[in-house]
């Protein structure tokens, strides 16, 4: 057990609550100060309530993880119905295409259309490659993808490389020359080539 954890440390659980709170704030940047205060209190109350149960728990770490996840999801779910969809931050993380297209205006104009084309093309990928590529676009690093899908990092890297390569082929007929170049750059920038 690491020295980080102490059963006497109030700060330990306060830090956890603060991290959860910050993640929720980050998801909803347009929240009012009052909403932020409400969420902060809700998260702290929940975390401390969980800690105070005082009943026999088979695995405290696992118990705390589930409680943290559920607390965050409850707070988010309550917020989502009152939140316009456009307030939800950029859906799929196409930031790789964004930052390249920023230097190529004509591609930037095609951004929305391009995203839709890519989204449709992802659906046509082979199962395992598709899952890895989807996680990649959601923002996961390949180490995380490997962990999330219970596979080795090499497997994840290979599937991602193959998936993005297939994706480029599927998207190519729909794109103009410069866009195709963008996608090629995107693939090359992934550093996912098999070793």
């Amino acid at each position, binding site marked *: 057990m690491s020295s980080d954890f102490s059963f006497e440390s109030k700060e330990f659980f306060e830090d*956890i609550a603060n991290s959860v709170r910050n993640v929720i704030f980050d998801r909803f940047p347009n929240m009012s100060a009052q909403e932020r205060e409400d969420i902060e209190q809700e998260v702290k109350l929940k975390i401390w309530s969980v800690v105070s149960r*005082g009943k026999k*728990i088979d695995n405290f770490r696992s118990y705390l993880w589930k409680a943290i*996840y*559920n607390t965050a999801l409850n707070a988010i779910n309550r917020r989502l119905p009152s939140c316009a969809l456009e307030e939800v*931050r950029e859906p799929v993380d196409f930031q790789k295409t964004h930052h390249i297209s920023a230097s190529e205006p004509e591609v930037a104009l095609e951004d929305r259309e391009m995203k839709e084309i890519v989204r449709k093309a992802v659906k046509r990928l082979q199962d395992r490659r598709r*899952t890895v590529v989807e996680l990649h676009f959601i923002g996961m690093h390949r180490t995380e993808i490997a962990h999330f899908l219970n596979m080795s990092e090499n497997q994840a890297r290979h599937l991602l490389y193959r998936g993005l390569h297939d994706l480029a082929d599927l998207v190519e007929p729909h794109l103009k020359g410069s866009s195709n170049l963008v996608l090629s750059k995107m693939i090359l920038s992934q550093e996912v080539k098999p070793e």
Partner: protein
Amino acid sequence: MRKRCPDSKALVSAFFGDMTQEKKAKLIEHTFQCPPCELRFKALRKIRLELEDKVNSIPSRALTEEETNTLCKLAEERLSEMGDRHEIIKPRFLGRFRFVYVAAAVVLVVGIATVIFSDRIFSSRFMSRSSDGGTLRLLEPIGKLPSPPVHFSWTAFPDADIYLIQIIDENLSIILMKDVFVPEYTLPRNLATKLQRGKAYLWSIEARNDYGEKIAFTQDYFMIR
């Protein structure tokens, strides 16, 4: 959350690894196409990344009695510090959906009137709405009351670890929203005095399990004569 969206339990299971690869692939496929689910997924991912080292420093075992007692004492102190100052929470979620809540308020008031002025009021079918094979039933206060209620009670629900009690007035303002561990609650005097004669109030209990998941819900009305 849309009907076809995975529920919180499924999302948490995916992060815990206790989900088949096939189900996980379906969940990811949906998440990729659904911005609200992507938001939830990304939030859990961020939390895991931020807290991995910290939470994993906790022993992966059952706590000893001494450790449990220490934690309980610490939590009770902290909860006590936080006190009752958060018991009244004004609704801040009206915003652009105000018209929906106004319509809901009208329906609520009509519903309350129907229930209160009907001879069949508070028959058992109004008093109990249960789920998951158990029965969660409100015991008191129910119906027309001579004075503001102080004591609230309901039946214990199987596997419930915590109950969320809420009292809402006719304007849909939340008078009380509080977590309690036993199936009863005594309203503090400062809140009891906010309940007005001639007004109807909706109160509800949400039962949650160990992991904070909602497992049952019931609600009813009371009116102070």
